[in-house]
């Protein structure tokens, strides 16, 4: 075996000293990871405030919301939002959350910061690409935010931007002129950034692993980031041309998504030959894998963190990686389950339904293996551990409703109702965000050199865990009763009877949202006042815990790391109950 000290001294990179190169246009993956995190943090608070505004309007439609008229005098005269402004907020909430939060936080932010360190690299394979990825994402974000400030407001076509509503321009309604242009351009730019990022992640994982870091020794979150980047490479490569076609339909008079004979605003539209279903196919070919882009990194993060606090190895490590790969592979065969009642050939419903249901098998395996890891453990109930356990619970709750929506025969009654809203918020949004919270409490000491406050973290967990159930569980009942989503007010006979449930949800959403301020406070306060973190405060095994907190510019201070073990060596006998990946100590046979 190698003697680490006998390694040749490596060339040590020196950190840049100029302000711009160090903090703004940095090539350092750690700074870029933090930049992604900061962008996601700003975005998630914007998205959350939008959901507050929508929830308030749904429960008490006549109440003026203070200051809302300052944001948009047209959209909310005297603070009471118009139906179209509600749809603008809905579109922006979905878009911001899916793209700038759920794609950026668990994947781009943590992946950038920790993938190179976990595999023993000094940086990403292409640091300049990496910097471009972030700043291109930032440009996309600015374009999206600009939609709030154009004359007729943000688009009202939802985050899925179904054509022809999104394609014909201002004749289709407010927000669909300049607002929708900005949306389409922003998403196209976001696609470019994500493609660059995905290429970088893949190259880094395949080429820059240090000595001894075989694929099977990679931590589970590195595996998840790797699989996710493969998914992202294929998914964004389809959304990008789709957005370009949409932009052409909107600005250059083409008709990719617009058929002949449409009459909008009493005008016969000058288009012919396009297919609205083409947009849906292209969008969902991206859109469904996107769900896994959001959730897989969080599954990986939980599979990494849970054993650390359970003090025992993850059960079935190969089955966990295999299930993640299976989910990634299957994610490309199921997009049509968003389109059962869309008017596509009804025979194809079964073709899309079966692989969708099959995804529940690897998902069930993952859940059972996480459960089996908790079994018999001596759990350390830190905030990070609690969020991992909460993840398991919400992942079960969100996954179960997938059994319903995967079946075309049930989609006839559940499609476009609040049942769907409950499903995807639980399984994609809440579960993914729980992974991000777990990751934040776990890695904050490594990223900043200071510990976060545990009491505040636990308080944050409890309010959030109970809160998300109070918000999203009742939405299943609403959906069953036939409450249609994307309505700015409830005027149907059925829905009026359900308004008390909406009021309950709104109160829960306001309180749960307010609880996130505890997290924000903890984040900022701990950054400056938190206890100093040691190199390995959680007694974890992976490579980021073999370097200082925070790591030096080149991650390991000129050392060449050599890996002797997998990441899963917890609960061993001996003076300490774990073996670091860098420790040449032999793993006892269990």
């Amino acid at each position, binding site marked *: 075996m190698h003697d680490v000290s006998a390694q040749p001294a490596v060339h040590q990179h020196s950190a840049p000293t100029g302000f711009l190169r160090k903090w703004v246009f940095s090539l350092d993956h750690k700074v870029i990871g933090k930049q992604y995190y900061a962008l996601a943090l700003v975005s998630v608070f914007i998205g959350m405030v939008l959901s507050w505004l929508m929830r308030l309007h749904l429960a008490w439609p006549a109440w003026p919301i203070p200051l809302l008229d300052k944001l948009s005098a047209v959209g909310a005269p005297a603070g009471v939002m118009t139906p179209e402004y509600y749809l603008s907020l809905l579109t922006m909430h979905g878009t911001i959350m899916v793209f700038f939060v759920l794609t950026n936080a668990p994947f781009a932010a943590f992946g950038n910061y920790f993938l190179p360190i976990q595999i023993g690299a000094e940086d990403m394979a292409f640091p300049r690409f990496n910097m471009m990825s972030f700043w291109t994402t930032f440009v996309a974000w600015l374009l999206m935010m600009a939609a709030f400030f154009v004359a007729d407001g943000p688009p009202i076509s939802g985050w899925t931007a179904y054509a022809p509503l999104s394609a014909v321009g201002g004749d289709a*309604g407010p927000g669909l002129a300049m607002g929708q242009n900005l949306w389409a351009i922003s998403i196209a730019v976001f696609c470019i950034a994500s493609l660059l990022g995905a290429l970088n992640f893949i190259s880094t994982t395949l080429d820059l692993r240090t000595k001894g870091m075989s694929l099977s020794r990679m931590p589970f979150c590195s595996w998840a980031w790797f699989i996710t980047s493969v998914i992202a490479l294929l998914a964004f490569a389809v959304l990008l041309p789709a957005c370009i076609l949409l932009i052409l339909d909107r600005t250059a008079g083409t008709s990719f998504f617009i058929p002949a004979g449409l009459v909008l605003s*009493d005008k016969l539209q000058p288009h012919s030959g396009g297919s609205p279903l083409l947009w849906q196919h292209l969008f969902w070919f991206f859109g469904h894998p996107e769900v896994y882009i959001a959730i897989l990194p969080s599954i990986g993060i939980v599979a990494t963190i849970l054993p650390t606090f359970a003090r025992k190895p993850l059960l079935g490590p190969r089955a966990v990686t295999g299930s993640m790969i299976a989910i990634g592979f299957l994610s490309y065969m199921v997009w049509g389950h968003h389109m059962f009642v869309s008017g596509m050939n009804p025979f194809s419903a079964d073709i899309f339904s079966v692989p969708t249901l099959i995804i529940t098998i690897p998902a069930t395996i993952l859940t059972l293996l996480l459960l089996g890891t908790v079994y018999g453990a001596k759990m350390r109930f830190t905030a990070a551990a609690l969020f991992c356990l909460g993840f398991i619970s919400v992942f079960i*709750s969100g996954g179960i409703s997938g059994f319903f929506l995967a079946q075309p025969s049930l989609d*006839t009654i559940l499609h476009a109702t609040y049942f769907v809203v409950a499903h995807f918020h639980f399984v994609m949004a809440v579960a993914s965000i729980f992974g991000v919270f777990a990751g934040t409490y776990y890695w904050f000491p490594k990223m900043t050199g200071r510990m976060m406050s545990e009491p505040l973290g636990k308080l944050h967990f409890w309010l959030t865990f109970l809160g998300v159930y109070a918000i999203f569980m009742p939405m299943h009942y609403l959906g069953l009763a036939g409450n249609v989503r994307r309505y700015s007010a409830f005027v149907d006979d059925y829905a009026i009877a359900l308004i008390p449930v909406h009021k309950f949800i709104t109160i829960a959403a306001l309180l749960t949202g307010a609880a996130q301020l505890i997290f924000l406070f903890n984040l900022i306060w701990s950054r400056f006042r938190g206890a100093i973190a040691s190199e390995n405060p959680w007694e974890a095994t992976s490579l980021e815990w073999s370097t200082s907190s925070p790591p030096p510019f080149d991650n390991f201070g000129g050392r060449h790391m050599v890996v002797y073990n997998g990441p899963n060596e917890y609960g061993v006998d001996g003076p300490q109950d774990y073996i670091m990946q860098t420790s040449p100590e032999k793993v006892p046979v269990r």
Partner: protein
Amino acid sequence: MGKLFSAAVIIITVVSVAIFVMHVWWLPIDISTTGPAVDHQLDETFIGTGILFFASQILLALFVWGASNTSSSRKIKNFPGGATPLVAFAIILVGLEILTLTFVGSKAWGAIYIAPPDPNSLKIDVQAEQFAFYFRYPGPDGQFGGIHPDKIDDGSGNYFGLDPANDVAARDDIVVGSLTIPVDKPIWLTLHSKDVGHSFFVRELRVQQDFVPGLDIPVHFTATKTGKYEIVCTQLCGLGHYNMKAYLEVLSQDEFDQWLKAQAGQ
């Protein structure tokens, strides 16, 4: 802390399941011939996945409860049998569940969307536009007039773009704002959209189908109970989406005949 977590998970699970089981909020009544199969499929899915949901949440609570005992005398235990039985269990149990749901469910789906409509159906054309539905009956000649988008004019009530001056079949077409049908008679709708995507959803019929601009989409069903039901739009179609609705009125055959005669006479 662990025991508190277990208690919270158990309470959440029991309350959630109880509300489902007690049908506190549930589907409205079913009034179609194809609906019972859908409702049956829903019940099957609820039972199968409900057990899965309940069992896995309770297991989580029990395991966390056990894991919260950190006394130094207790040794860490591995899951009996390791990962293999869990993986096998997941593949077999969930696999069987999937097979059952697919075989039973595809029949329910096929009856609504794949089975051909009865040729003796009453044919009705539906035009959706921002933000209304219009329904067209062929009139005494049994023929629908052709649709000409350039002739669509909401101001004069020509929602379908008919051309009665040149098209004989269009002259007696009856266009109304609500869908009136006879009970127990097969109905064959053809959905067109004037502008953007919309959807036809009647909760009580257990039928939902999008309108796609550029396509004529067939929908067929038979209503088994008279009464008045809501037709709502479920595809985001613009600012008035929330308010886009019409009514389905199911009448006895006699009442329907009289209604149709009255409409034709106008």
